[in-house]
């Protein structure tokens, strides 16, 4: 599905963050060795959702291209809401890394598409992408330890 309006993209980010939260909550249930970090990630997702919403509601005006700022193909960024059943810990970590890569790619693409139109929104997307880069590093560190 292609999304063009700011409203639909912001709702999509909300959904992605909620799905990513569910993913990490399940990770925490199934793999107690990483539970602390996974739950922290799940909590952080809510924060990302909030800062994106705040940026959008703060800058949306009738004068910018709110309905024409994006061209997001959602299928590229969809991921499983929970880790595949009966995966090993390392395989589940790899699945989490893949999810983070998709999310980083989504936020980077969305920021690039909207940078001329949406003021603080693309900047916030890049902040979230950067945070998720750090998260990917942490997941890789867990993978090394496993």
């Amino acid at each position, binding site marked *: 599905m292609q999304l*063009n*309006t700011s*409203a639909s993209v912001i709702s999509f980010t909300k959904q992605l963050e909620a799905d990513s939260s569910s993913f990490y909550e399940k990770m925490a249930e199934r793999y107690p060795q990483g539970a602390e970090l996974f739950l922290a990630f799940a909590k952080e997702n809510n924060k990302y959702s909030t800062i994106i919403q705040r940026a959008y509601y703060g800058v949306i*005006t*009738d*004068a910018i291209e*709110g*309905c*024409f700022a994006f061209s997001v193909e959602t299928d590229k960024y969809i991921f499983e809401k929970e880790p595949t059943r009966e995966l090993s810990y390392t395989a589940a970590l790899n699945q989490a890394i893949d999810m983070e890569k998709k999310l980083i790619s989504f936020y980077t693409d969305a920021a690039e598409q909207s940078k001329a139109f949406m003021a603080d929104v693309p900047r916030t997307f890049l902040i979230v992408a950067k945070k998720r880069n750090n998260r990917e590093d942490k997941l890789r560190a867990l993978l090394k330890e496993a």
Partner: protein
Amino acid sequence: MAVLEEPIKGIVEVKNYIDGEWVESEGEIQDVANPVNGKVVARVPISTKEEIDTAVEAAKAAFPDWRSTPPVARARSLFLLKELLEENFEELSRVQTVEHGKTIDESRGETRRGIENVEVACGIPTLMQGYNSEDIASGIDEYLIPTPLGVFGIIGPFNFPFMIPLWSAPYAVATGNCVIIKPSSEVPLSQMKIAELVDEAGFPPGVWNVVNGGRTVVNGMLDHPDIEGITFVGSTPTAKDVIYPRCGATGKRVIAQGGASNFMVIMPDCNLRATIPALMTSFFGNAGQRCLAGQNVIVVGDDDHFYKEFINGVVDTTKKIVIGNGLDEEVQMGPVRDIEKKKKILSYIDSGIKEGAKITLDGRSNFKIKGDYPDTCFLGPTIMENVKPEMKIVTEEIFGPTMGIIRVKTLDEAIKICDDNPFHNADAIFTSNGKTAREFKYRIRSGNVGINIGIVAPMAFFPFSGMRDSFFGILHTQGKEAIRFFTESKVVIERWP
């Protein structure tokens, strides 16, 4: 993505808000229909002369106490109102979509812009300060005190039901005046919602009043000796032939903002990737129903390759515009407000064709509506080429989702076309050349000038400008000019022998 929940359940019986009370009107009642599906969402009274008189009396009675309320205290009431508007942001936005038809992004944008005016007015303790000179002669000092005048009338249009009365009302009450707002009877719900929050914020009775209606209310305001001034946003004929002269005749201050026929000048060196989305918003945002909308593009230069690339880019993007219910988050363009407005837009397209314009994209019938809605108030975007400056689709305001395309060889010709047009609300240029942009900015006689901006909407701390047939008056709404408009300069010269 979801179709958002409707904010209104059932049919709202709109009342007047006078002297801090919700009052039923004795006037005739009219239905307010959602343009998306024709469903009646409200019933609005067309108030009587006696009712506007009662509101003026209430506002006049409230004025002495409100005027002597310290500006910091008045600002606190506005801060409270701002907080309440923020808390109700989403509901207020959805109400606009239901009563007007605009998309949810557009409604949220309108809500934000309206609130920004309340925020600016919160700075009244410093915004309203006067100035002084010590020792203008030996032992004599002189100073200026901006003082409020009394009661002001605010007449709103249908296209921005929430925001436009807020270009005036927060400044009027911040400076110590009392207001009577007359929303467009086509879209009365947003102002009713704001009045509910005004009431909750605890403004004293009579400071902020809303009287619904039509001509009788407008005439009642224009003729009333106790109304000091009027702000109006609407069509040029009404601004020019009714509001402005009648205010002059009755000695009222006036801000009368009229219509527009704006030009977007496209230079061959513009960045098309950024320009095309800006044009989409400019021409088709709010279904073209705004006085800052682009009505015609002027493509400069004889580079046929660029022209073809430009047209193809614009047409391809326009064809993909998703039309439907504004509460559907994927929708990029909603319906026009009602069938009469649709008929008027169609008549302009027909007139363009008769005068020789070529239809490149026909929005009269060649469009799809997302969802199961009747096409009663819907129109697709229309693009017309071979447009000439003397055609009616250039010299008159269409107020719909149409784009005319004019070709000229030089920037001089483009500026001349802009200058020869009777309206001068907003014109913009799209270029990557600073010298060209400067030349345009310097020479163009337009109230709001855009450089690589399709909707030149001044922020709340700048005046909403406009010139010639787009504006009648001297001072403008918003920001410092609004503060000046709503106050008289009292000059004191003082000596203590």
